[in-house]
């Protein structure tokens, strides 16, 4: 059985020229209530796009990818009894009317894509008809302080693939996907690789990126030349962008169209899989490959120049993500 992304929606702090969807509300008030308000807004958009009978939603399992879960609530209310992370995920699932089993997934920045791959496993194995996949990363001090402590943040803005790139900029996002047995975008394959040397390194080495992309292509039955569009991980990291670029240039004899979203919405960590997929599908539905915000000056060493392009002919997409600890995911998506 094949699995598809049937519908997608995202709330993020995004530039409207990239791909309009839902804007994040200001960071104020009760943390948990704000999270639930965002969930309800994304739910309304997702349901209108999914076109499913309302009776399908209550049985739906929900898989939530996040690296910080409700840490923001713990910061705001250190003494509050919030229960285990999966109960926060259950609160979010209820905002979508999903009362099936709930799971949270934490593989750092690839969490959302790992959740998507697990949902695909469930659909393919016939364990459910539809699955709700959320990628959630909401305002908290600890993520910022942590990335700062690890020396990974930019002093200015995210500049993916740019010669002046100097680090990541973190962002908030709440992405949501419905994975089903039918839809517009078929998940042709999902590959992951782990860099054993990446335990405390900010970015995997190029061979791990190359292995992940090659595995995704092989599992999809594609050649590199079949890829119309490459969604880069590139977040503006000096070493990470370079490692990915070297792998891309080694794999593609002729470079496909390329885009990175991290200059527009920031690096949204565990949410970045569902969030960037939702932005990508939204842009392609409008016939556009959006510009890569933050990319202005080509870096000869990187050798990649993501640019706005016509997206109407894009049928095959390779979608890269990488995370702290050497985890790399590459997803092959085919427009049916």
């Amino acid at each position, binding site marked *: 059985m094949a699995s598809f992304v049937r519908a997608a929606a995202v709330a993020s702090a995004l530039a409207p020229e990239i791909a309009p969807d839902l804007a994040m509300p200001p960071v104020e008030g009760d943390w948990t209530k704000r999270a639930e308000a965002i969930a309800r807004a994304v739910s309304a958009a997702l349901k209108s796009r999914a076109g499913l009978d309302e009776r399908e939603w209550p049985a739906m399992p929900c898989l939530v990818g996040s690296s910080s879960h409700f840490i923001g609530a713990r*910061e705001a209310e250190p003494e509050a009894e919030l229960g285990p*992370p999966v109960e926060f995920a259950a609160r979010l699932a209820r905002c979508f009317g999903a009362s099936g089993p709930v799971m949270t997934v934490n593989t750092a920045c690839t969490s959302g894509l790992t959740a998507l791959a697990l949902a695909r*496993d469930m659909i393919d194995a016939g364990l459910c008809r539809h699955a709700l996949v959320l990628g959630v990363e909401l305002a908290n001090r600890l993520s910022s302080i942590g990335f700062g402590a690890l020396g990974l943040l930019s002093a200015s803005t995210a500049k993916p693939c740019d010669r002046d790139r100097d680090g990541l900029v973190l962002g908030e996002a709440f992405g949501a996907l419905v994975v089903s047995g039918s839809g517009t975008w078929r998940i042709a394959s999902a590959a992951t690789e782990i860099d054993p040397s990446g335990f405390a390194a900010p970015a995997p080495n190029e061979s791990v990126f190359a292995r992940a992309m090659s595995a995704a292509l092989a599992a999809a039955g594609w050649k590199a030349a079949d890829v119309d569009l490459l969604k880069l991980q590139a977040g503006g990291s000096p070493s990470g962008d370079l490692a990915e670029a070297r792998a891309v240039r080694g794999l593609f004899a002729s470079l496909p169209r390329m885009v990175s979203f991290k200059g527009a919405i920031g690096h949204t960590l565990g949410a970045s899989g569902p969030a960037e997929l939702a932005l990508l599908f939204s842009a392609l539905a409008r016939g556009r490959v959006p510009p890569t915000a933050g990319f202005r000056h080509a870096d000869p060493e990187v050798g990649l120049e993501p640019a706005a392009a016509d997206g109407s002919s894009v049928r095959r997409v390779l979608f890269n993500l990488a995370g702290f600890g050497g985890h790399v995911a590459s997803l092959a998506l085919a427009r049916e």
Partner: protein
Amino acid sequence: MITLAAPTVMRIDAVALAPRVRERFGGELRRAGTFAQICLLGAQACLDAAPPRGALGMLWASGRGAVGAARAALAESAGGEPVMPFTIIGTLPHLAATLLAQRGAPLARAAFVHVRPGGWPWLLGLAQAWLAGCDRVLLGWVEEARESEGTHQSDWCVLQKEPGEWSCEPLREVRGALPATSADWLARVAAWSAAPREPLALRGDGEAWRFAAGR
């Protein structure tokens, strides 16, 4: 039908974690947080009993996760002090997979998840699905001690397609199956496997699995 191998139940006195790690790995696991070390000790013991052959998946779960490091990081950040990088690294449970890969485990995919107390059958179902692409799946449940002098839990097994000592399969009917939780089902299977007579049927939230000798 799939088979289960090397059910491994490990309880570690919190104060004995460092010596246990040194004993098994010949030294400290530099930069690794408490949770990742607990994971690695149990997972490695399981693989010692059932060495990986071919592509290995690693699917492991917890109720609370790396809660000790998360508390420490929150306390450090609340005090206005810079959080130490290794405190942050300790909050990342998925790094246990990187540690296992460093020791030569042929990991093809890995996922750390949180599920509810009755959610363990979901993990078995996913592990079974992973066997379409992996030769074996390492499946675990890990929980840190609640107190500094408490006991850590690191329970694991290997699921595989090849014939093995114990078969396992989902049941259509949950009636008659004994209730089990995410925290105790592996220990119950391990205890049963030490002297299996009748098949063992356990149930979680709405689903049940049956374990039997031989295939």
